[in-house]
């Protein structure tokens, strides 16, 4: 077993950058705030001091050009990492991402390579509202040629970032701001993680539960709680949204006959819509209940904490749905109440008890 120690995900990312930049002089970073006192939530702190301003570029506010610049440098063999402190800033660079990053390898029949990593951080809570707290993974997951990943654990933040930097295809690296605070064992050495397929987090025979990003953490509580009500879940962290490798999940659905998907973004046209469609197409005869999806409702998120509290899916909603699907006679009200009680011990609109704002 590789040597590990406990880190938060943000620290794990920082370590990935430091190790990758030390190992490969082609790796450089472009990110607004990369060298500022906050260091992109601590993920880039100290890197400019260590590697210099030429390799840790704190750039002008020019998302579209900087994306094209990263692509051009990548065509020359460099390995740029671009950071957006919120996903929404990447929208200014959609043309570069979709037309150039995603297509150059294909259109040149493999002669061009675009090894860029584009970090996009998904916000939530503290009244950030409609344009600072969107989960837009679907936009990028729709595009052949992009790889799209959503790490959850600290080990995956480090390992998947190392793999993304080493990958010769463009990788959209979607970090959930609240996952930055997760704590867990992380290998000391730079060990890349697989960018192919989900990770199974629990074994069970009654229902297949799949979630992305922060919703994996909500689902994890629900999966534990459901077990007490006799529902054992086969539970997956999807991790890699594109290319989408559903082999393990479809095999699970064929065994359990039930599928619940929890999106971090909107339900309609969401990642869950695709997974449920494929499960229906490929495991129809095994289904014992209609597949279900949970995700964000059909509206932007408002800033007011009172409104935002009703907006997000929680572990209580997930356990409720799991029981409806797999044990409809169970006491769902009690199951909900237990999880809501745990939830209510913390303020609901911050990622971590230590969090004091403003982000």
């Amino acid at each position, binding site marked *: 077993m590789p040597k590990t120690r406990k880190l938060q995900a943000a620290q794990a990312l920082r370590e990935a950058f430091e190790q990758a930049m030390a190992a490969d002089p082609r790796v450089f970073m472009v990110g607004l705030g990369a060298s500022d006192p906050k260091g992109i939530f601590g993920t880039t702190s100290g890197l400019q001091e260590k590697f210099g301003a030429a390799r840790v570029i704190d750039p002008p506010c020019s998302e579209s050009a900087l994306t094209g610049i990263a692509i051009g440098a990548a065509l020359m063999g460099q390995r740029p990492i671009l950071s957006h402190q919120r996903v929404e800033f990447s929208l200014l660079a959609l043309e570069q991402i979709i037309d150039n990053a995603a297509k150059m390898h294909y*259109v040149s029949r493999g002669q061009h390579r675009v090894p860029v990593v584009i970090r996009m951080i998904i916000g939530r809570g503290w009244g950030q509202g409609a344009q600072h707290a969107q989960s837009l993974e679907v936009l990028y997951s729709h595009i052949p040629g992009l790889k799209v990943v959503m790490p959850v654990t600290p080990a995956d933040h480090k390992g998947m970032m190392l793999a993304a930097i080493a990958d010769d295809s463009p990788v959209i690296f979607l970090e959930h701001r609240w996952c930055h605070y997760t704590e867990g064992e992380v290998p000391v050495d730079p060990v890349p993680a697989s960018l192919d397929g989900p990770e199974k987090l629990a074994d069970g025979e009654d229902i297949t539960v799949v979630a992305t990003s922060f919703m994996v953490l909500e689902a994890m509580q629900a999966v534990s709680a459901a077990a007490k009500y006799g529902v054992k879940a086969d539970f997956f962290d999807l991790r890699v949204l594109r290319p989408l490798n559903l082999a393990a999940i479809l095999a699970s659905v064929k065994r359990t006959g039930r599928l619940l998907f929890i999106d971090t973004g909107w339900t309609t046209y969401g990642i869950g819509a695709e997974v449920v469609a494929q499960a229906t197409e490929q495991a129809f005869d095994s289904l014992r209940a209609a597949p279900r999806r949970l995700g964000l409702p059909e509206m932007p998120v408002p800033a007011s904490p009172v409104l935002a509290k009703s907006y997000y899916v929680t572990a209580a909603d997930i356990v409720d749905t799991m029981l409806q699907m797999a044990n409809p006679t169970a006491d769902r009200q009690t199951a909900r109440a237990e999880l809501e009680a745990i939830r209510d011990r913390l303020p609901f609109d911050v990622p971590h008890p230590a969090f004091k704002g403003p982000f």
Partner: protein
Amino acid sequence: MITMTNEHPQLGLFRSMLRIRMIEEAIADRYAEQEMRCPVHLSIGQEAAVVGACSALRKTDKVVTTHRCHGHYLAKGGDLRRMMAEIYGRDAGCCGGRGGSMHLFDDDAGVVVSQPIVGSSIPVGVGIALAFQQAQKDDVAMICLGDAATEEGVFHESLNFAALKKLPALFFVENNYFSVYTHLSNRQPVRPISNMALGHGMASAQVDGNDVLAVQEAVAAAVTRARAGEGPSLIVADTYRFREHCGPLFDDDLGYRSPEEVDHWKLREPLERFRQDLQSRNIIDAALEAKLKATIQGEIQDAFDFAINAPAPSPASLGEYVYAQNA
């Protein structure tokens, strides 16, 4: 650019312009056969700008360009057979038939990408210049764009960054006055386009884009500055396309530009103008030009024969190269 030993260097410029003209006219002549099944954006009328700019570069310098890319590709030394095979959608094309006429590139010649979305290739060229700077090379990235691309936000973002980092980049604007059918006067206030560089603290020049020697001189000066680490430049070459925005035809019957304007530019037609200049200085005569044309004609015939007879890509290859196999 192809030059022969022991000949006047300006004859090489003329040959390059003539060659681009003849190749594009051959494309136009055969387009109605409907075998070149992709859009074509011809640069007929803009050859002096194209050749003047590319002739100021060396092989290891890089070029990024636009949908109107045939001229840059050829003037920088791109392979003609592979270009024609690409336009014919063949496996032997420079992109294996995946790009068509708007996606020409030739790594050996330093033509990195051509991209049809207006402004799209500009920052890519800046990124190439950044990579040169990071690798401490004295090569230069020339970014070819049209007048309409100077209206895109990404153009200004790119100039700002290139100037800030003193990158070895050269923004070369062929101002042909039209964004499809929309004249420059409907799109920009009256002032030299090159003035935009002032706002970015960048050196600039506006030149007669139908005077190949004037373009070459302006670009060469900018290239020298870039190689010396003195930063990027914006060069605007005023020119005119004689044919339709996209396609093989003349479209002046549509009435979007006045006959007087077209006549004004016909008097400044770059190839004839350079021919007269070279004749007056005894660098070319009718016999020599006929010889040049015959050689180019042979090359064109060869390239069309090659492309037409080349195998199509295999439908089984459709799914290849969506993702790179990691080294």
